[in-house]
C-alpha cells in the first residue's frame, strides 16, 4: 500500500512537472495577444501625442526657442547624432561606474548590519543623512573638490543609488521564510551558513527591485552632476544647448537620455528574469 501511494505521489509530481494543460496554453496565448494589444495601444497614444504637439506648435506659431516641434527635434537628433552618441557613452560610463559603487556600498552596509545588529541605528542614520542631502547642493561642491572630470559624477551617482540598494537588501536578507530560519536554528547553523544558503538567495527579488529603481536613477545622477560643470556627457550637451537657447538640441539630448534610462531598466528586468529562472531549472 505504502509503495503504491509513493508511486502515485511520484506520478502526480512528474505530471505537474511535464504536462502542459491545453487550456493553459490557450490562456497563455490569449494573455500574449492582450499584452501585444496593450503595447500597440501605448504606441498609438504616443504617436497621437506627438502629432498633436506638432500640429499645436504649428497652429499657435510658437517660436522654436520656446517649444520646438517634434520634427525640429528629430532633425536635431539626426544632425547631432555623432556628438550625442559620444556624450551618451560618457554619461553611460559615469552612470554605470556610480551605480556599481553605490550598489556595492549599499550592499556592504546591509550585509554589515545583518551580521552586526548593533550597527543598524548608526549606519542607517548616516545613510539617511546622506540620502536626504539635496544632490543639487552636493554636486557643485564635489565639482569644486574633485574637478571637472568623471570623479564627481561617479560620486553623485553613487550617493543617489546606494540607498535603494541598502534598504531593499536589508529587507531581502530579513525575508527568509520563518520555517527555514527555525530549521537553521534547530541545527545551530552559524550566521555565515544561514546568510549564504538562506538570506542571500532569499534577497534576490529585493536586490533586483532596488536595481530597477537605481539604474535609471544613475542616469539622472550622472546628468545632474554634468550640469554643474563637465567636459563631456549628455548633461554638458544639454547645458550648452540650454545656455544658447538651442531648444531642438536640448530636446534631442533629453530624448537620448530617456531612451537610455528605459534601456537600463529593461536590461535589469531581463537580468532578473534570467537569474530567477536559472535557479528554477
Amino acid at each position, binding site marked *: 500500500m505504502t509503495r503504491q501511494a509513493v508511486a502515485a505521489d511520484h506520478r502526480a*509530481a512528474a505530471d505537474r512537472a511535464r504536462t502542459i494543460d491545453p487550456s493553459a496554453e490557450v490562456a497563455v496565448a490569449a494573455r500574449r495577444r492582450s499584452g501585444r494589444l496593450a503595447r500597440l495601444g501605448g504606441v498609438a497614444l504616443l504617436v497621437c501625442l506627438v502629432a498633436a504637439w506638432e500640429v499645436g506648435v504649428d497652429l499657435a506659431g510658437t517660436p522654436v526657442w520656446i517649444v520646438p516641434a517634434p520634427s525640429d527635434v528629430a532633425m536635431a537628433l539626426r544632425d547631432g547624432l555623432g556628438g550625442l552618441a559620444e556624450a551618451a557613452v560618457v554619461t553611460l560610463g559615469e552612470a554605470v561606474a556610480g551605480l556599481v559603487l553605490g550598489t556595492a556600498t549599499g550592499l556592504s552596509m546591509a550585509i554589515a548590519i545583518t551580521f552586526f545588529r548593533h550597527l543598524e541605528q548608526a549606519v542607517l542614520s548616516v545613510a539617511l543623512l546622506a540620502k536626504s542631502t539635496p544632490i543639487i547642493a552636493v554636486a557643485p561642491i564635489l565639482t569644486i573638490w574633485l574637478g571637472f572630470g568623471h570623479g564627481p559624477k561617479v560620486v553623485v551617482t553613487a550617493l543617489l543609488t546606494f540607498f535603494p540598494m541598502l534598504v531593499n537588501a536589508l529587507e531581502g536578507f530579513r525575508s527568509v*521564510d520563518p520555517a527555514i530560519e527555525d530549521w537553521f536554528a534547530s*541545527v545551530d547553523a552559524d550566521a555565515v551558513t544561514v546568510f549564504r544558503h538562506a538570506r542571500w538567495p532569499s534577497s534576490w527579488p529585493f536586490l533586483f527591485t532596488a536595481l530597477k529603481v537605481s539604474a535609471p536613477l544613475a542616469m539622472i545622477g550622472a546628468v545632474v552632476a554634468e550640469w554643474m560643470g563637465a567636459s563631456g556627457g549628455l548633461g554638458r550637451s544639454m547645458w550648452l544647448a540650454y545656455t544658447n537657447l538651442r531648444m531642438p538640441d536640448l530636446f534631442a539630448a533629453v530624448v537620448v537620455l530617456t531612451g537610455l534610462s528605459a534601456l537600463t531598466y529593461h536590461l535589469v528586468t531581463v537580468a532578473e528574469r534570467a537569474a530567477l529562472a536559472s535557479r528554477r531549472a
Partner: protein
Amino acid sequence: MTSTTDPTDRHPMTHPTHPPTHPRIQAPTPPALDLAGVGHRYGTTEVLDSLDLQVEAGSFVAVVGASGCGKSTLLRLLAGLDRPTTGRITVDGAGPDDLRRAGRVGWMAQRPALLPWATVRDNVAMARRIRAATEHPTDPVPSVVDLLTIVGLAAFAGSRPAQLSGGMQQRAALARTLAQDAPLWLMDEPLAALDELTREALADDLVAIWQRVRPTVVWVTHHLGEAVALADRIVVLGPRPARVVADLTVDLDRPHDATSPAAQAIVRDARAALATAAIHARAGVALGGAR
C-alpha cells in the same frame, strides 16, 4: 547555487537503485527527556503552566491538544529554540541547548522548510555538512543517495522542492533529518498539511524508519487517530495555559491498527480528557478566571 557535491556522498549522481533494506543508519544513544515544572509565557500570555513530563529514551511520544494550546511552544523549548520562563528541562542530564549545538536535534514542522533554490540532494547534503562539523571522522555515515533511497526519492535527487508534491517534500525533509543522524526527533505536525492517503503512506514509512533508527521522538499533533497509530504513549495537554491532563500508554503490537477496538478505546479516553479539560477551563473563566 553553490557546489552540489557532498564530500561524504560516495555515490554521485548515477547511482543504481540501492536496496533500501541495507541502510547504514543508526542513531547514537537516544536521550531521555525530563521536564520539571516547566512554564512559559509570551509577554503576558501564559502558554504552559508548570508542566511535568518524563520521556523515556528511544520512545515515541505523541503530544496532543487543541490548536493553540502550547504544543509547538513545548517543542521549541525542547529544541532549545526558546527558554522556559520557569522550571527546568534536561536532555540526558544536560540542557536542551547542548544537543542542538551539536546539530543533533531532528526538527520537522508542518511545512517542510526546504530551501526552494536548492535541489533535494543539496537540501539533504546541507544537513549532512552541518552535522559533519560535529561528528567523528570515523563515524559510519550513509550517503545522501542512500538517505534519498530510504525515503523513496532517489529518482528526484536533482529536483527542486517546488517540483515535488507536499508528501514528497516532507519525505525530503525526513531524509534531511536522517542526514543529521539525530538521536532526538522533534516533530511539529509534519503530516498535517498532507492529504489522507499521502499521510498514511508517509506515517507507515516513518514508523518503519523509526523502528530501525530508534531515536527518541516527540510528535506533536491535534489528530488523535494519528497519535494512536504512531506513538507508544499519548500525552494529552489541556487548553492554554497547558498542563498534562492525561497520559495514556498505547500498548499495541506494531504496526498499530488505529481502527482496532483497543486503539479506539485509547482515542476515546484522550477525547474525554480533552473535553473535561475544556469544560474545566470554561468554568474557570466563568468564575472570574480563578483556576
